[in-house]
């Protein structure tokens, strides 16, 4: 059994956000982290590995420095890492990204009992589209917003967290699951993992590696193949300090209603 986990290196949004003149993010000048939801996907994969002995392959599309993040995930317990990297892939939006990642997953190969895990969404774009698009392009059943997960044979029972409740559904492998932070508590790197991670299997898939896949066409990848155009990126201005009203009595409610009415909110 094989588990493929898709991860993304994202800017650390707890720091300052830098924007290029053309409106795109200046990623090079910002500290990076592994996308938080993706760490839950990694943990889901490692927990399944603990249970079944499956091989965990971590997959990332990004610039060469993303190797550092992939090594850290190997140090957490993954078995193999693949970085999809090439100038031709630069500027891809979610559509183009999912074309390329899908081709990479096909290259790795997906068997009958295999699973693909993704984080729900990345904190930089917040689109939550790539995981679902990969599932569509690979013709895989998908379950999003996984908050709990059990695997028995080739059946996964997944509890999805929705805005107003939960939905529990079963899905057959091979399938794709997108994970949320409620699913688990990501483990740390281990000492042995750290000392081994730089000698573990690590591959780079570039344009040459993937170009024969029909999904990877110059018209469907990179900036040219991306239907999305970024109009502008900016740091929103800080909102003013809020006003706290304490108490659950009628007077406080009247005060709240009065304040809202004065601002023409109600």
């Amino acid at each position, binding site marked *: 059994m094989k588990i493929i986990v898709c991860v993304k290196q994202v800017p650390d949004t707890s720091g300052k956000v830098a924007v290029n003149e053309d409106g795109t993010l200046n990623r090079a000048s910002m500290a990076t982290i592994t996308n938080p939801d993706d760490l839950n996907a990694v943990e889901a994969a490692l927990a399944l590995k603990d249970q079944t002995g499956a091989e965990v392959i971590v997959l990332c599309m990004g610039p060469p420095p993303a190797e550092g993040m992939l*090594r*850290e995930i190997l*140090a957490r317990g993954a078995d193999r890492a693949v970085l999809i990297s090439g100038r031709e892939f630069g500027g891809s939006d979610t559509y183009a990204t999912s074309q390329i990642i899908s081709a990479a997953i096909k290259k790795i190969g997906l068997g009958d009992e295999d699973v693909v895990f993704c984080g729900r969404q990345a904190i930089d774009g917040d689109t939550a589209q790539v995981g679902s698009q990969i599932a569509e392009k690979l013709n895989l059943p998908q379950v999003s917003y996984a908050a709990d997960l059990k695997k028995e044979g080739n059946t996964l029972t997944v509890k999805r967290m929705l805005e107003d409740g939960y939905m529990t559904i079963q899905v057959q492998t091979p399938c794709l699951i997108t994970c949320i932070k409620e699913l688990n508590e990501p*483990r*740390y*790197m*281990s*000492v*042995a*993992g*750290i*000392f081994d*991670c*730089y000698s573990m299997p690590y591959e780079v898939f570039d344009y040459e590696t993937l170009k024969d896949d029909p999904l990877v066409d110059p018209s469907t990848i990179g900036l040219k193949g991306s239907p999305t155009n970024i109009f502008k990126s900016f740091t929103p201005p800080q909102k003013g300090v809020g006003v706290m009203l304490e108490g659950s009595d009628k007077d406080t409610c009247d005060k709240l209603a009065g304040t809202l009415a004065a601002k023409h909110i109600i």
Partner: protein
Amino acid sequence: MDFNLSRAHLLIQKMMREFTENCVKPIAAETDLTCAYPKETIDQLFRYGVMGMCIPKEYGGADADDLASAIVVEELSKACASTGDIVATHNGLCCDPILKNGTEEQKMKYLPMLSKGKKVGAFALTEPNAGSDSSKGTTTAEDMGDHWLLNGSKIFITNGYVADIIVVFAMTDPSKGNRGISAFIVESSFPGFSVGKHEEKMGLHGSPTAELVFTDCVVPKENLLGPLGKGFKIAMQTLDGGRIGIAAQGLGIAEGAMQEAIEYTKTRVQFGKRISQFQNTQFVFADMALAVEAGQLLTYQAAVLKAAGQPFSKQAAMAKLYTSENAMKITTKALQMFGGYGYTKDYPMERMMRDAKITEIYEGTSEVQRMVIAGALGVN
């Protein structure tokens, strides 16, 4: 000469920072207040391979090196010196002497227990009348033909009442002085072993310190560690290495206290200014940072020398002496930055100051470190 940490050491530092921030710092004050051994934390440190980290893989460890081991203790001690102490003792004073002096059978039996097996280790040398002059111990080990019989007691033993495996030093031939001391691997389940008084200490409240009592304690013949009569040498060599752990602990306490104080002075306003804006504050922190950095270089140097198999006794003594004395000075000055608040248990400063003091005492007092350094200089 390269002063940069390797990729692996940077990752160890990153992992331990995250672990300490999430799992150690939030319970440090309560651990101190309740004098509770942080079992859950130690279980986690076993899970991640920190406990027994320098044990080679064939014996169940992570095959890490001495620098990684020092970084671990430094990072833990920034938030909780007790946790740093438990780990430093387990790794430096129990795993290390078994690894360095054990027979293949002893290593195959005990090292997996001290890593994957989650058994906690300790080191028992000190006795009521044998502290710095550790050759004056009176615990005896009598050769009974098919086993050893240990009698006596050891005091101030770190991990004392939680340890499963203890490296114990006892006289096998009192007429030979130092050369009559031998080392043994003792399991807490051996008949005749018991735990005596639990020490109530000024600091390090989460670190379980106790007296160990041996009353006709039966130790298998094969549990003699190293050659007969070489126990004193094993003890001294082990303490040389252990000092790097205490140096790292002192370093971590100082760094933790400095960081807490820096954050506080950036928010505390007096006389219409943040107190970080006063030159006195800035100069105090500049001096602290200097001592921290110098101590870190000494500590890392000793660890790298040990890992490379080069002589490190003098450097380890220097590192331990320097960082422990600075831990005391820095926690005192950092507490001063908090004024009256620093003296209360609402802030971690008083705990850090209490914890710092022991680093000047255990695993060789500051005075003993000066003896070691002077000895290395040939001044006698």
